[in-house]
């Protein structure tokens, strides 16, 4: 069975780089590995062998067991519509101005689209391991809760509100005579907008059965996935990390916490015989940062008893397989995923 590693965390903490590194470490052991990535820096994409930046997997030129593909939320939404709705309905959906709005605005949408792609890759039997770099909204929590949110959306929460619970046929979509609020809204919005929205939501309901079924298998994959939560020592990523730890669904695995951009504790209070005042001052600046990190860590460990891996601060985005492996190897070792038979 394909193993799954989900890499979550706030934007800007180095999640994409470390997800790639975990993939490299696994592939070097001979596992057939796919890295699903969201928004890689150009040099990282090159290091991974991503040529097309599309959701079709590319092989790595230097490491034949390593493949990579992009998670493209826009394209995936179209795929969802085409997969779960009858062809003529899917055409109408994709062409609607509201479809674009849903794809861009419904926060769980991109996460759900990514989750569907993940589960397709997990189920196609081509991989020993799939590493998923989760979309950054809400520090990865959205990815775990996306299937349920998606069911709520197409299950007609909006639709039921507009119609007062009854699910009417297309023609009698809005019973304006019995819904004064709707009549008023139509007056405010004008231009028949409500009828357009209603038609769109009615079409969207066609995807419900497919999504309801699919989201069950997605939920099963998420329950057995290995979790890596990446943070830095900065306050805002830490708030998101706290939130992930506290709010993650109870049936998911305990995450490994990765503190990226960690400085050596040995710098704190270090004395030196070097005389260059610029270098002495530089050490003391960085020592102040290291001291801050030590305090942050102590307070984190008071709050959470979870496995922690430190990744050192790199001056540069890693751009080759060797550096990626060195960075992420301690995480990969800590994951302790059983070898492929």
């Amino acid at each position, binding site marked *: 069975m394909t193993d799954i590693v989900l890499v979550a965390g706030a934007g800007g903490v180095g999640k994409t780089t470390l997800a790639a590194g975990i993939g490299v470490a696994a592939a070097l052991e001979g596992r057939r590995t796919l890295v699903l990535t969201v928004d890689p820096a150009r040099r990282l994409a090159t290091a991974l062998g991503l040529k097309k930046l599309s959701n079709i997997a590319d092989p790595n030129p230097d490491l034949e067991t390593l493949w990579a593909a992009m998670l493209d939320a826009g394209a995936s939404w179209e795929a969802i519509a085409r997969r779960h709705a009858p062809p003529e309905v899917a055409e109408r959906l994709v062409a609607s101005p509201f479809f674009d709005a849903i794809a861009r605005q419904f926060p769980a949408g991109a996460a759900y689209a990514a989750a569907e792609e993940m589960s397709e890759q997990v189920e196609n039997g081509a991989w020993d391991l799939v590493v998923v770099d989760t979309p950054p909204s809400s520090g990865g929590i959205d990815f775990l809760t996306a299937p349920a949110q998606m069911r709520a959306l197409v299950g007609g929460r909006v639709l039921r509100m507009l119609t007062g619970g009854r699910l009417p046929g297309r023609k009698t979509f809005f019973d304006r005579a019995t819904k004064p609020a709707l009549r008023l809204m139509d*007056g405010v919005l004008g231009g028949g907008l409500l009828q357009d929205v209603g038609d769109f939501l009615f079409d969207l309901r066609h995807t419900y059965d497919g999504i309801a079924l699919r989201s069950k298998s997605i939920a099963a994959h998420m329950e057995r996935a290995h979790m890596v939560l990446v943070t830095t020592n*900065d306050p805002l990523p830490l708030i998101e990390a706290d939130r992930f730890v506290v709010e993650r669904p109870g049936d998911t695995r305990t995450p490994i916490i990765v503190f990226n951009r960690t400085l050596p504790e*040995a710098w704190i209070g270090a004395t030196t015989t070097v005389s260059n005042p610029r270098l002495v001052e530089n050490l003391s600046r960085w020592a102040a940062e290291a001291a801050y990190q030590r305090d942050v860590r102590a307070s984190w460990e008071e709050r959470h008893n979870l496995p922690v891996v430190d990744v050192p601060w790199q001056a540069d985005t890693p751009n080759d397989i060797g550096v990626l492996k060195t960075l992420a190897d301690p995480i990969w070792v800590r994951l302790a995923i059983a070898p492929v038979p």
Partner: protein
Amino acid sequence: MNHELQIVTGKGGVGRSAVTAAIALAAARSGRRVLAAAMTDASGLAVHFGLDRLDYLPVPVQPNLHAMAIDRGRALDEYLRLQIGLGKRVPLLPLSRNLEALSQTVPGIRDVVTTGKLYHEVRSGNWDLVIADGPPTGQIMSYLRASRVIASLVRTGRAREQADKMTELLAAPGSSLIMVTLAEELPVTETLEALAELEGEGLIRLGGVFANRTVRPLGVSEAALNAVQDEAVRASGLLHRGLYEGQKRWRRELPNHVALPLLFGEHIPADVAEQLSTQVVS
């Protein structure tokens, strides 16, 4: 007459809220009456003023400075009452509940309600400057375009008139967009993409670009560093030098910008905002 609106945007994690707070603090110190507003739920504006949270009603933070958070439900009620002009006798709850649900589907409704509150505050005459901790760079264009999108979907009526007024406000000479970035590949690329879109559409003027968390040159060559025996001195020097070189490369890609410093060991949000506020005024 000089009622200004500044909307601050930047990729998640670049310090958007810190820079918003810093500009607000600096403007208030210069004697202008300032309102700082958090536009999204995820805003970190409150902690940068040393507060736990912000409310819909502006609260005083310092002399000349008030802060608020735009609660979408409250903003929607106010939008319907004050801007669309529904009378007191019209029951709002069912209407706003329906609109809130609808706003997941119709492009621009959510955004137009949030920017509508900004419009209301700018026009109130209570402030010389309204500065908004805005949505991330990836969403800013959809916010700025919202009133035009609404106008294209709703051809008549009060919502349409209101949308047109907002398009006007954003395009006014007193309104501008401030972009915050780090001197790294992804945030710089995203900033340049947004700038290119902005330029093409004339929705709002660019008010300035800030490169946050930059380091100054070390002033020691790589060769000299590698010759240093002391491990901590060498490693901290190489890290600093490497960061500076990387940042220099990405700062070259940015248009004219103000560089804000990386504050070593200083991460308490209110202190960060205070320190940055002395640097944002150039």
